[in-house]
């Protein structure tokens, strides 16, 4: 399915990245549309996490250009760039010495929001991610894995960024909780319409959550397909994935948005 907005929200133009003698990404070209959920699918070492980190400049490309809202990254102050992008990682990385409220409210705080506005926003977000408002005064170590992950998402959404980057966010959760949070993610996306770039190695998850799947292998982009197209694809890598994941994929693809 081709993107239907004129200027891509995020664009990779011929991007390469190599470090310590390894070519991590090579000749990468991709356009990500506003409001879509783009899944980067691939094995470990395929370059998908690096691709994600190039978007919020945690990593800088060796060559090529990355554009956000049409502007080259070089022209955007990196701190402002990052403040406008929500970032969720697998280990979550909640600040252990901050309460949930302080964790979630951190970016609004450093952006200068008033105390009242921050508190209201924290409550709003906790509700949004399906958590009790009373959790606001708890510390991360007092929460379960699933709760922590949800707080991580709430934190990423706090300053209302237009872009959300998620690096295997549900990978460490047990299957039941994972299923729950995936469902919640889908409903959240329906409400918020953020541009999401989502990294995973799990085809089920990719089919379920993504509007498009970008398959990566050995530092290269292999193909970009919608979930249904992916299942029917004759591309050797795509079909290898489908075979490896076996049953239940159709159902997963059907539950995807759009």
């Amino acid at each position, binding site marked *: 399915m081709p993107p239907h907005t004129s200027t891509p929200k995020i664009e990779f133009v011929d991007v390469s990245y190599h470090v310590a003698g390894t070519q991590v990404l090579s000749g990468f070209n991709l356009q990500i549309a506003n409001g879509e959920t783009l899944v980067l699918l691939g094995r470990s070492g395929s370059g998908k996490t690096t691709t994600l980190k190039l978007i919020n400049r945690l990593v800088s490309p060796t060559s090529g250009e990355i554009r956000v809202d049409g502007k080259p990254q070089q022209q955007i102050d990196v701190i402002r760039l990052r403040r406008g992008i929500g970032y969720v990682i697998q280990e979550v990385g*909640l600040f*252990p010495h901050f309460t949930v409220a302080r964790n979630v409210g951190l970016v609004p705080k*450093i952006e200068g929001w008033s105390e009242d506005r921050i508190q209201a926003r924290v409550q709003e977000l906790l509700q949004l991610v399906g958590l009790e408002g009373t959790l606001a005064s708890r510390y991360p170590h007092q929460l379960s894995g699933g709760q922590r992950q949800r707080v*991580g998402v709430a934190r990423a959404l706090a300053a209302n960024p237009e872009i959300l980057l998620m690096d295997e966010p549900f990978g460490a959760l047990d299957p039941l909780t994972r299923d729950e949070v995936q469902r919640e993610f889908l409903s959240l996306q329906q409400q918020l319409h953020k541009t999401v770039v989502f990294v995973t190695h799990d085809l089920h998850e990719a089919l379920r959550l993504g509007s498009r799947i970008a398959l990566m292998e050995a530092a290269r982009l292999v193909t970009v397909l919608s979930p249904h197209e992916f299942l029917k694809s004759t591309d050797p890598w795509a079909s290898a994935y489908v075979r490896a994941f076996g049953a239940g994929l159709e159902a997963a693809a059907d539950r995807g948005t759009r």
Partner: protein
Amino acid sequence: MKVLRFMLQNQTQVRDLTLEHLWLVGVSTILAMLIGIPLGILIAHRTRLNKPVLASANIIQTIPGLALFGFLLPVPWLGARADRLAILALTLYALLPIIRNTYEGIRGVDPAVIEAGKGMGLTESQLLYQVELPLAVSVILSGVRVAVVISVGLATIAAAIGAGGLGEFIYRGLSMVDNRVILSGAIPAALLALLADFGVGWLERRLQPK
């Protein structure tokens, strides 16, 4: 006890020497923190520098205390005043535990936390002051604790070169062959070390991250 009676009779002197001792230890520890903590932060962030910095601090530590005092005596401005010299020597000795623990404390912060912080758009200094330092403070204090306890002991030797402090009682007592005088220096010095160890240790535990 004879010693206690002696100490009571000479309480102003015991107090004076104890304050002198605290002054030597306090100033040098604060200086070591002012130099050592920023250095520790620097090498934690730019790990290329960590070997030379830690190695230098280590070398200083291996020089025996009295020998270091001896080396510094001929130095023009320093050697003119024994307390200046003693404070410098004590500061140098306090550097290694403080630098090393600052380094370890910051390196020991969960990398996921740092990554999340960076990704959120925290500036370097926001990351340092709001995340890294608060999470490392307990380990850093542990280094300060070691430094203070070492300093209290080393400062007793400083009296040998005329810097004053509780060591003076010890040396005078040795000259006079009077145990009461010796112990009037040795006991408060030992108590100071214990107090520092306990006090800073308590602070460490209070500030430990959850």
